[in-house]
């Protein structure tokens, strides 16, 4: 309860700061100035697009990978150890740890570049393709996939397991191939779970700052990174800018939350 109050205070304070209300700096009149500035800054559009692109790419790939992984687990009846290794352990590793491993593996002076260099595949370290710091966000997407594929699998395989037993036998007795059964029966029946985990992965990738901060390029910067840079600026007034950026980010996330609720409602009605 205390925690909830503290949280609510923090959120409220953040919203107020976005409208320029910071009593300790003598600012008490609400203003839209910071939102206008945030919305008109030259790097905002490219930043939003970059964040949306990274979120979309990683959630689409994570969903495809996760559904596949889930199908493999249910079909092959992977046991507890297998699930632990393929699902639980990746989910438990912190994103920053994965990000640092990506740096030491895929950066220009990373392990892979050195190995390729020493066996003569690439001429010098500079020839190694840009993964870390690339403006296509490869490294960021790679980190999200490491954790989000198992996450999608985790949230779908319970449902998938219960479906395959009952319906796929029926389908295959009617002559459907395993692949056909999978796409015609299993996927549609587990689609609400898939859609929900897709949205969660999307919202997470859109709003998280530490991975793009560590692995992103100088330009374009992800939206949360922009907000973080403004927030940590020594100029306290910049916090209003940060909060305005957070407001924009929250608005986009709210749309995702609304979609999520729609799916749950439809699911309830369907029952």
């Amino acid at each position: 309860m205390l925690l909830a109050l503290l949280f609510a205070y923090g959120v409220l304070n953040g919203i107020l700061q976005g409208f320029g209300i910071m009593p300790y700096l003598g600012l008490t009149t609400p203003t839209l100035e910071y939102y206008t500035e945030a919305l008109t800054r030259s790097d905002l559009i490219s930043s939003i697009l970059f964040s949306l692109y990274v979120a979309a790419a990683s959630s689409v790939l994570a969903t495809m990978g996760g559904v596949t992984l889930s199908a493999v687990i249910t079909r092959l009846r992977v046991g507890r150890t297998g699930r632990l290794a393929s699902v639980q352990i990746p989910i438990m590793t912190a994103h920053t740890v994965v990000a640092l491993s990506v740096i030491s593996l895929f950066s220009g002076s990373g392990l892979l570049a050195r190995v390729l260099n020493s066996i003569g595949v690439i001429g010098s370290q500079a020839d190694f393709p840009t993964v870390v710091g690339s403006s296509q966000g490869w490294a960021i997407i790679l980190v999200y996939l490491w954790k989000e594929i198992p996450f999608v699998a985790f949230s779908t395989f319970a449902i998938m397991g219960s479906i395959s037993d009952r319906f796929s036998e029926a389908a295959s007795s009617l002559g459907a191939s395993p692949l056909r059964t999978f796409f015609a029966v299993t996927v549609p029946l587990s689609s609400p779970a898939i859609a929900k985990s897709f949205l969660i992965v999307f919202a997470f990738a859109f709003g998280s700052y530490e991975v793009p901060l560590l692995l992103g390029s100088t330009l374009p910067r992800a939206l949360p990174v922009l907000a973080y840079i403004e927030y940590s600026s020594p100029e306290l007034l910049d916090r209003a800018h940060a909060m305005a950026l957070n407001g924009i980010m929250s608005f986009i996330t709210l749309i995702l939350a609304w979609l999520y609720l729609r799916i749950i409602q439809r699911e309830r009605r369907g029952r």
Partner: protein
Amino acid sequence: MELRNRPLTRRQFVEFAGLTGVAALSSGALWGCAAKSGDSGSAAFNIDNADWSAIVAEAKGKSVSFYGWGGDENRNKWLDTTVTDALKKDYDITLKRVPMGINDVLTQLSGEMQAGAKEGSIDFIWINGENFYSTMQNGYLYGPFCQRLPNFRDYVDANTEITYDFGKPNNGYEAPYGKAQMVLLVDIKKTPTPPSTAADFFTFCKANKGRVTYPAAGDFTGTAFISCLLASAMGADQWKKLTAMNANDEKAIRDLVEPGLKYLRSLNPYLWKNGTTFPADSGTVYTMFQDGELVLHMTYDPFGWINDVKSGLIPDTTQSFILREGTVGNTNFMAIAKNAPHKAAALVAINEILSPKIQLSQYETLKTVTVLDVSKVDSNTQAAFKSVSLGKGTLSLSELLAHRLPEVSGGVITLIEKLWTSEVVGK
């Protein structure tokens, strides 16, 4: 999910009510504590009227927290041993070093000030530049205090750059800690002729295509290095004009800096990843330099890097150099939080760090340039300062100081960082 659609059961209601009660009680108790300790502190001792011996007496037996960047292992060790031992022995003060990036320190300080805490958790802070300026503007610092410190009065020449921090007068709200200056590093075994002018530097980047870069603006070292290149490309006189300018003159600053930005853009095609992206911090650049992916590194610690040669992190053929047009330097400082719980101990600790003994030790162990006017200390200490050997490959102190340029003020720095982001990266 389920809870929301159902009214609370009786048990849940009791739990809820109980928790609210506990929360209310405990927050009440917290308020009580804060109020009590605040009162006793101010009633017992009035620091503003105390003379030095009273301050030393008040500080005895206290522990004092020193917040600051903790990324330099050598400095951490020096603070934890030399400084901590001296304070314990001479004044019975326990120094608690809290390693924390300055942005986080400011977040904590402003958070505590906003919450109205009469006694915060921060005593004194390692601070510099715009960070200092904004905290002073917001009234988060205690002072002015410099003139109260015996060692400041006796050994610091207050008519020098020490009264200014990034072009802004510090009015005695921060005491100097050490002097820094930007130098560049190369391994002369790989690149035998380091560049000595801005034009040379361009040729150097061209000759080592893809193997030179610098940290993005916003990183402390990155911004300082960009300042150096801008100063070199614009010329020292134009740069000095810039240091006298106010951030409000946005148009004039833009026009003045444009030749420098043009120079930075001309470097891009020859930089790492063609200048489309830059490492986010100087630590990354240093790792890449150590790994041989880059042939050039830059540091604000003009002599301190020699310690890394000794520990084998970089080869002993490493050499430092500067561009002849000039290299920026600054002084870094210590400031006391307005709501510091142990102000007397903080004053004594800062005074101790300003003592010839500790300043000499800082120069010997960390090779940090002293903030004292060496001609004012006794002859033995003077001789000791002179006899410190800086190490192979370093520039002489006089060579450095002869090419020293001031940093521009905080607001102008922010503008330069923005200009770099919008008009140099990938252009």
